[in-house]
């Protein structure tokens, strides 16, 4: 795309006078000021889908069995608190660059949170498949043994905690923006 823009600029310089009105918009490409502007963040959309996912986790057997329920509940609480101000923040982002940066940072954490939740979801799906179709080989059974379960729980618990911490940090900044 950049290449194309440059060529368009060159065209402008080569322009014959009669062509001038045609490039009324392209002239603006000569101004680099906004080229590097931050993109719009969709934190609210992602938060919404995360909360939906967390809702579907609630009360599920695996959460209890893996001892993840406390972590997941805390994550949910954090997310809900942030989610409450997101629509206001997103409306203000076009005018306030700092809010935009804040939202972008938040989006990054939310994406990472989504990856963790997907990992948990994946693991449940996998167990479901093994349970319903049965695994004959001893090797496969060993992979799903309890030691692995503990390792998985620890890993996930650790990841969730780190995400909660990052959320807390970002959350503490929100008071600066006067969001409602």
């Amino acid at each position, binding site marked *: 795309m950049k290449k*194309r823009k440059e060529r368009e600029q060159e065209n402008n310089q080569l322009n014959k006078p009669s062509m001038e009105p*045609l490039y009324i*918009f392209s002239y*603006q490409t000569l101004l680099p000021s*906004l*080229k590097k502007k931050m*993109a719009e963040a969709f934190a609210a959309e992602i938060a919404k889908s995360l909360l939906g996912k967390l809702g579907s986790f609630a009360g599920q057997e695996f959460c209890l069995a893996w001892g993840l329920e406390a972590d997941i509940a805390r994550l949910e609480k954090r997310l809900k608190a942030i989610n409450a101000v997101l629509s206001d923040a997103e409306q203000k982002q076009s005018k306030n660059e700092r809010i935009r940066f804040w939202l972008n940072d938040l989006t*990054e954490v939310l994406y*990472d949170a989504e990856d963790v939740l997907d990992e948990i979801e994946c693991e449940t799906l996998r167990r479901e498949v093994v349970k319903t179709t049965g695994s004959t080989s001893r090797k496969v059974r060993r992979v799903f043994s309890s030691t692995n379960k503990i390792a998985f729980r620890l890993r996930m618990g650790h990841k969730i905690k780190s995400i909660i911490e990052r959320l807390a940090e970002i959350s503490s900044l929100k008071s600066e923006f006067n969001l409602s």
Partner: protein
Amino acid sequence: MNRSFESFSGLIGRDEDKERIINLLAAPFKVGDADPLVLPIVGMGGLGKTSLAKSVCDDEIVNTHHFDLKMEACVSDDFSLKQVVQKIIKSATGERCADLDVGELNKKLEEILNGKKYLLLLDDVWNEDAQKWLLLKPLLSKGADGSKIIVTTRSQRVAEIMGTVTAYNLSLLGQEDCLSLFYKCAFKEGQMELYPNLVGIGKEIVEKCKQVPLAVINMGTQLYGKTDEKEWKSVRDSEKWEEEGDGILPALKISYQRLPPHLKRCFLYCSVFPQDYRFGDLYLVQFWMANGLIHQSSNPNEKLEDVGLRYVRELISRCFFQDYKDRMVSATFKMHDLMHDLASSLAQNEFSIISSQNHQISKTTRHLLVFDSDSFFHKTLPKFPNNFHQVRSIAFVDSIVGPTCKTDFEKCLLEFKHLRSLELMNDSEFEAFPERIGALKHLRYLYFENIKRLPKSIFKLQNLQALDVRHMISLRFLYLTTQQKRLPEGGIGCLECHQTLVIAYCENLKDLCKDMQGLKSLRKLVIFRCDSLISLPRSIKCLTTLEELFIVDCEELDLMTIEEKNEEKIQPLSLSLCIVIFDNLPATLALPEQLLQGSAESLQIFIIRGCPNIEEIPDCIHNLNKLQNLEIRNCSSLRKRCRRATGEDWPKIKHIPKIKVDGDDIGEETSHSGSSNKPYLNLSYLVVHFYPFFNSFFRLNYFP
């Protein structure tokens, strides 16, 4: 689609331009003229160059000038000789020619053009390298005298390089024409007079569009059906009109701003696809689903796929997509390049394009479009080793070739731990898909083209994981092409969530798997071009969720194999088929009565074409209460028997409101034909086309 870009871009105020261009094309050929004549149409983006050029090509006067061959190729950013030649051949013959080398391609093009008087449209050319054009030009000179080429471009320089006559400079659209275009888009018929206040605001909005028709159309469709003055004023007073600096039409930004957030995201994700990409609605929806962009509907009957298709329709009616073509089974469309620029500019945080010029990616990159896989493997990968674990989708546009391509690709798969979508848009040189793919446990969308290059074919890959297909419990969409004779049991039949199954271009396939009843959620089944297929399993009758059944071009297939033979034992079925199409099934002697009877309360559209050996309409048609449309074409005996009032089968079908036999309406409500609201009822466009390059496609959640 009633309200789409095409219905507005019908060239208001371009009659004079069109006439002049046609005159240029129609001028008789004189000895000494350049051959072929190359006419460039130049103008900035959004003026309607392509619409104008296409309408010229379709014009009757041009048609009467006896071009033996009309072709169209969208050149866009990449002017690689090979790809341009491929596109021209594809436009002329429909062949994709993916496995021919440059020499063979050139020879083929020469054969196609040889001695023919052709008209070629090269759309959206950016190439300013005269050398490249000089390589293509001789190939195009094999046509007969009087062949013509139209080139559309934004660049004067391109016009100078390619044109053999003075370029046609397309001017801005006249202010008056802009106004009428806007009103046409913004008001329902007859509504304009009711809202004089809006007409005034509309005029001010049009003035801000600076006579660019694309902007005018977008603004108009944004406000269609909206009668609240405040809303119109907010568009007029938007600060985006004043925003400077990125070369994107302000009107498009305002359109975008007015989208609800979920559609904004879906739109931005479209920038992962290259410019001028032809989207297929079913595929795009699966891609969105893979990236979690589609919200579960509150209506439990509305599946994610339906919600996604609703999003597509909304984006089309707001003119974010254009060039819409309804193919019955699937619809396709494109994005205007200015729309693509808009999406890319807004998504630049998360999306990166890797080309021979740019191999950078950032820590926030989550989606990658790779134009130059060589740079990607050898520059990007080693340089940014820590930026890959967060990447969610990657699409390779070019072919992955070269001696180390397989190991490179395999290594790169290792890096992407959270990949949700993987696309190889062109053929690749490695023979089998790397095993590593199994480690991508988040993968939901996998697409690769031209499986012919995997010499053991897609089915071999299926065999490798034949046991595993049943583990892919989240699979919802599968397009299968295979060289095998049979589909194994315990494979596809185990996919309980599966929604759409397309079995196409399987020349050796004799039988489908018998355990089809396991497809408990299947809603769409397409069987297409299976030349050896003899029978269908009876278990198809157990698919109670199936809504659409298309069986097309199966030379050997006898549909009666679905039916139970011993008629006394049949239990009444309760099926939910809404649309059934049987097309070109010469080996079928009778219609499957049990299947149709089972759908008595749901079947709305029934189309039989090219089944000359079907003797009669079965009695059960009489019981199909909901049937609205019956079309019979190229069925010699049925035609006689269905003659209005006098035909033997007439009493069985006379209750159907709309009946068409070989193009003639013979049903009762003939006066209403053509005014139907539903796009798929437009029976004159029922030819089912497929894109042969969509060879296979999976959505998977789990791949052990």
